[in-house]
């Protein structure tokens, strides 16, 4: 899945941020000549852009405001990842939210990539409420366009931080659908199109897919700078374990150079969260990072 590829032959970065690592791993998963719906930009968009530069030149992405296959003028201003002139630059089409929603509903979106706040073993996503809805707790953003992406894209890739509070046995609120209760046909019974659903989860530490029979999250690979114990220790539920847990390659110098030089120029992305990892020989050391 993500162990073989051109990056193997490239020089590895000796210092990188965990968020950068997460983007690089996601980029390596991007399939050439496929169409990605990356919600409203951010990590998902940067992953596809990085992939286009290095591994999948003909991969294309759309955003929920109807920008189709842009070649954005980077870097983007803060939060201006949609509608604006720079993210819209050199698109092949400008349409609308219903426009891209139709493209997705009829099956032209091969993949969706989503940032998620809280996730359960079946890939259900909470981005609405932390606590007991609606009496007690904290309001978050709401699904945005993620509900449609999670419901209708053929394969959905979920990006999230590797923390206990994010991997929970049951989300406080299902904002966007995974495999729901995990039973066979649960999505179809709820009115969602068949042949869709979560396909992978990528964190700053690990990569998961979903076991076909059980539709449960399955650990496939971990970062070289963490142990299996650490990975499982930062999850509030026990994922299925693949027969062989692969070890992911660290970012290449090429990957981080392009990401820092063209995308995360102000460092606000890697600066916002995630520790820094440094390598000396075979030793990895972690430096507290983030805001």
């Amino acid at each position: 899945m993500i162990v073989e590829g051109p990056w193997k032959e490239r020089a590895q970065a000796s210092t990188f941020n965990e968020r950068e690592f997460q983007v690089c791993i996601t980029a390596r998963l991007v399939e050439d000549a496929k169409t990605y719906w990356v919600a409203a930009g951010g990590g998902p968009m940067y992953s596809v852009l990085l992939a286009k530069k290095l591994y999948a030149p003909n991969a294309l992405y759309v955003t929920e405001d109807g920008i189709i296959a842009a070649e954005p003028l980077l870097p983007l201003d803060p939060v201006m990842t949609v509608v604006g002139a720079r993210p819209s630059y050199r698109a092949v089409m400008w349409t609308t939210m219903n426009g891209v929603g139709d493209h997705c509903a009829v099956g032209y979106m091969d993949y969706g990539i989503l940032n998620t706040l809280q996730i359960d073993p079946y890939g259900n996503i909470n981005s609405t409420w932390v606590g007991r809805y609606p009496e007690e707790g904290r309001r978050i953003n709401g699904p945005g366009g993620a509900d449609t992406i999670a419901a209708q894209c053929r394969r959905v890739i979920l990006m999230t931080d590797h923390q206990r509070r994010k991997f929970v046995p049951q989300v406080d609120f299902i904002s966007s659908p995974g495999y729901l209760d995990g039973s066979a046909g649960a999505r179809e019974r709820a009115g969602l199109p068949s042949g869709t659903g979560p396909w992978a989860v990528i964190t700053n530490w690990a990569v998961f897919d979903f076991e076909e029979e059980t539709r449960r999250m399955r650990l496939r690979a971990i970062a070289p700078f963490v142990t299996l114990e650490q990975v499982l220790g930062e999850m509030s539920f026990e994922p299925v374990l693949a027969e062989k847990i692969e070890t992911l390659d660290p970012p290449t110098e090429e990957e981080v150079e392009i990401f820092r030089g063209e995308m995360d120029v102000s460092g606000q992305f890697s600066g916002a969260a995630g520790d820094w990892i440094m390598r000396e020989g075979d030793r990895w050391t972690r430096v507290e990072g983030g805001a």
Partner: protein
Amino acid sequence: MEEAVDRYVADGDYIVWECNYLQRGPSALLREVIRQRKQRLWVCGKFSWVLVAMLVEAGCCDRADMGFFIGGAAMNRAILEGRLAIYEYSNVVMTARLRAGAMGASFIPIRSLGGTDNFKHSGAKLIEDPYTGDPTVIVPALNPDVALIHVHQADVHGNARIFGAGISDVESALASRKVVLSAEEIVDIEDIRHNPGLTKIPYYAVDAVVHAPFGAYPGECPGHYASDTQHVVEVFGALFGDRLGEYVEKWVYGVSSENEMLERQVGFARLKSLEERATVREGFRP
């Protein structure tokens, strides 16, 4: 501007705006709505970043259909204190509801929302498809009382041009009972007639056109000016720092009009620099 908001936005109205405070939205119109202290608005909270929180904090809004907005402390208080009722949809489901409204239909079938907790806290229903018998999600049409839309160009009759990607400008214009446009530029109808293919909203859907240069400030109006990054940071800071009240005080109540705000608080030099930062015009200028 003052007159249009006074005349077409009523207390208790269901209000929809297109895009948002940062991206080609009717920011000036919405500040005027706050300035006139409209009450009990029910808002369409799709794709809306900071606007819902601003309206809630200013006491203008007590109901919201979600969508997407940045939460924050102000919003949280309002919800827990029962000052804000929220109905749970998603961005695309809300634009689908607007499309149904624009079609004159009372509902529309969709392929999402099913199985989520949004579904349970929304007007959606799960029905048997009358043809296939399959479970099918439907949502009620949305026909707002008033739509506020910022456009690149409009003539005085309301024929309007919008350039670039967007959310649901046309759907909102057709679905809403009253439509107020703010336009960067007023063009002659002769200009409109020279290229009818550029018109997105027809005159008969529009009740008022306000000439509002920089009407999307602090947001970007693609092809005309960039977003005011400094201001964007300020409003997000206020939102996350629970100082939205101060922000509204300074930028809305603190001035008598939008013109005064642009003149006194932003200033010509800053506006000019935003125009200069809008280096990409291709496709946004006819």
